[in-house]
């Protein structure tokens, strides 16, 4: 721990993150925003929808809008169609499913490993990331759930119509 001095100040303040994977990259989502982790099945595609949206699915009797984190991040489609996972998120009374390539463990992280978003990151990523945690051997990009869900809607609509 190189920045042990800092650690003392924030020793008690740890945050838990659910880790998810898109390709090889690991992302973290604040655990208090995650309602569910499930395997998305029976997704109904929605024609004319914004590209980020995979479709609608039935999650225990609720209609959930599924969006693809890969597309949201502007990444190319996966080469192999593996088993996808979905994270249930809520915003403004609506439920969304964030489709990812895989879900990892829950990490308890302190502020000591936290870094702000590197400025050389792609603009799209910069908007979506809250920061980066330095872990052993890899980095964890913390995603801003509200920013993730802020897309599409009317602006696109006017173009489509």
């Amino acid at each position, binding site marked *: 721990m190189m920045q042990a001095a800092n650690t003392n100040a924030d020793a008690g303040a740890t945050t838990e993150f659910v880790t998810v994977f898109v390709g090889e990259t690991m992302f973290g989502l604040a655990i208090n925003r995650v309602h569910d982790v499930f395997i998305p099945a029976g997704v109904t595609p*929605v*024609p004319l929808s914004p590209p980020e949206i995979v479709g609608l699915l*039935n999650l225990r009797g609720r209609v959930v*809008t599924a*969006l693809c984190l890969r597309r949201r991040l502007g990444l190319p489609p996966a080469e192999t169609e593996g088993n996808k996972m979905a994270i249930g998120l809520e915003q403004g009374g609506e439920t969304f499913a964030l489709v990812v390539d895989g879900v990892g463990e829950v990490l308890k992280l302190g502020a000591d490993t936290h870094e702000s978003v590197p400025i050389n990151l792609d603009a799209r990523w910069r908007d979506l990331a809250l920061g980066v945690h330095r872990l052993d051997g890899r980095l964890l990009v913390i995603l801003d759930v509200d920013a993730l869900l802020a*897309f*599409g*809607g009317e602006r696109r*609509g006017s173009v489509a119509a």
Partner: protein
Amino acid sequence: MDDLLREFLTESSEHLDTVDTELVRFEQDPNNQQILRNIFRLVHTIKGTCGFLGLPRLEALAHAAETLMGRFRDGLPATAASVTLILSTLDRLKAILADLEATGTEPAGSDEDLIGALDKMSEGTVEAAPAPAPVAPPPLPDPVVRELKPGEVSLDDLEAAFLAAPGPDEFAPEPVLAEPAFAKPAVAPPAVAERPAAPAPAPEPAPPVAAPAKAATPEAPAAEGEAAVSKVQTIRVNVDTLEHLMTMVSELVLTRNQLLEIARRHDDTSYKVPLQRLSHVTAELQEGVMKTRMQPIGNAWQKLPRVVRDLSSELGKQIDLVMQGAETELDRQVLEVIKDPLTHMVRNSADHGIEGAAERKAAGKPARGTIRLAAYHEGGTITIEISDDGKGLDLSAIRRKAVERGVASQADIEKMTDAQVAKFIFHAGFSTAKAVTSVSGRGVGMDVVKTNIETIGGVIDINTQLGRGTTFTIKIPLTLAIVAALIVKAGENRFAVPQVAVLELVRVDKSTGQRVERINGSPVLRLRERLLPIVTLTGLLGQSDGAEVDTGFVVVAQVGRQRFGILVDEVFHTEEIVVKPMSSKLRHIPLFAGNTILGDGAVVLIVDPNGVARQVSQSAQAGSIPVESEVEETEAGDAKATLLVFKGGNSTFKAVPLSLVTRLEEIDASKVEWLGGRPLIQYRGRLMPLVPADEAITIRSEGTQALVVFSDGERAMGLVVDEIVDIVEERLDIEITAERSDLIGSAVLRGRATDIINIAHFLPLAYDDWARGPKKAEKRGSTLLLVDDSAFFRDMLTPVLKAAGYAVVSVESAEQALAALQANARIDVVVTDLEMPGRSGFDLVAAMRGADQRLAGLPVIALTGSVGADAVERARSLAISDLVAKFDRSGLIAALAEVDAVTLAQAA
């Protein structure tokens, strides 16, 4: 705020609304004791409750109003001024109640002004009244304690008197509910009328006043009213509770559907029966819960009589409000949404629509204007009409304004039909009112009205006639929560189409009779002698791979006046679906109204027929008109016509009215036979002559040959064309410059110069005797006068009428027609267009009927764009033999034949 006060607020505002309405009724019908008693009772209840709750300000006001109403009951004539005074008192009461609701306490302030005025009014001619109730004060305990202004000695006495009269009887059973209908039926109206305010000692003055308030609270369920318990038939339920119940039932419906789906797949009969039972119970439960949400539309109208009354006096107009079908029920959610639009539209009608009395008289109308509100059920929708007999929309002003505001170009405006132009009033910021009044004219509103109605899946339509009035027709679904839907499959996915919009299903297949045909790539379907534009669902959704799909089902849908077909691959079944709103991320897609979960658990999207209709008309109008417009039915606009455009000779565009066309054919060119130098084909077991549409066309000898078939009775003719291009529906502006007899003239269609061909020229080429008419020999040479302002229609109808054996005299206006009738004594029958600039067809007939005997007895057939009930009525009163839709040739011929038959019979 405690429950008691909350109850009081809800109840009182309901009472006040009722009083509002009733007062206006009372003003018009001052002798109706029933109404007066009702008002009196409601105000009395409010006053009593206020006293009980310790709300002195409200109580004093209510009391003063009640006193004045008591005077009415005693025979004081209800003047407009006094009703206005009471109405403004009610407004003050409402304002205080609103404050009370917001703050929980009665606001400070003085109502001396109103109370003084009310007292003065009640004291006015009091002495003349036969039963001066307040002057006989029997000793009574003070029923209520409150602050009174000095000098109001007689109040308590009055109070006692009023309590004694109708009060106790009516109050006891009434406490928990608001509806006046529940007033104890035992109250004998005549008794009250006879001794209106008999100062008989009230048996128990205090309890009745307190009873309603106490009983209304859950804590004191009718403690002193033994009778009340047995009479209570309604309870107040929080709306949230109902909403929750509704959601639960929706979920239950879903679960049932899932179970049914499972049962369908398994053959285990043991649980089929209970499942069926469950299904029934669910259905009934659903219906029951839906019923709790239903409210009569009259609730949304309640404020309108007052609104109209206030407007009438403010604007100095005389306006009657007629309401029909107030009991028609609809979902309260829907009701909430349409409440304000309705009020707005009624205000608009009163302000813009109805003219002042002087203006109305000058226009030959009764001085009192009428605004009519009507509601009725129609299928799964409710139709609301708001009509006035005012001056109608000034379409030319709207046209000007539209150009001024740059909403549409001058050229576009000229192409538009009246119906399209009228729709401009739904544009934001669009008002042609000359002056902005306090009522309306600010150009806000109609766009909001339209948006509101559309958000609940409704449509709004305008019908306006200059000088005659305007009618708005609103169609809205009864409920938004559960709808019957047709589950269809298009491409890879299933979709739900609301049943409301579906007229029928047609199976299409290349091999069977019903097949999809294409005109310039646009698919159409022949459906009972009409062409139906088709859209493919996959195409609309951008999933089409460009391949032309020709098999599947056409869902024939109708939205407003627009009818179209949606081509889908498969149709499964009908299902009651629970409409779930679209996610906020997807709400912008106009083609979907929501989504639902089907019995098998899959999520499907609900197709919004309104959205599809808009897309259909947009693609139909692509590029030509930038504003929203609808494909109107041909009959709707008299200057608008549907034309078949084809290429004929040297790649020129030609067109013929589609109404004249029997069918379109593509024949194998090798089937063409030549007989005596004339081309013929065998067509439906007969020989049909072929005539090229232009000299430059050569009939092909190989491949396929496009034909436009015209037929009349037994005869048919094939017009040989190079290629069928399109069907367009446009307002025709024909320049009749053609010197060629085969052309009527030319017009600009879709931005292309197009020749309009004259069918009358071609028919004789096919059959020498066609123009003379095969039936001519049977007919005496009748002479017919054709009156139509449009040269196009005159030219179109003349050959048809000639073919039917008439000598035709055609004129373009009512004036000319009258002149022709005077000059030409041989005219036997008149065919006239009803809608003409200047003097209308009705005016013409009226003039004829008022003229000499010959003209008065002349049979008349009227052509009209739209056959409305009032038109039929008017036609009947003018002894018009028949009303025929403008494009209905065979109808016209049939009507003429009938007239002939009658004339012959009379002659014989």
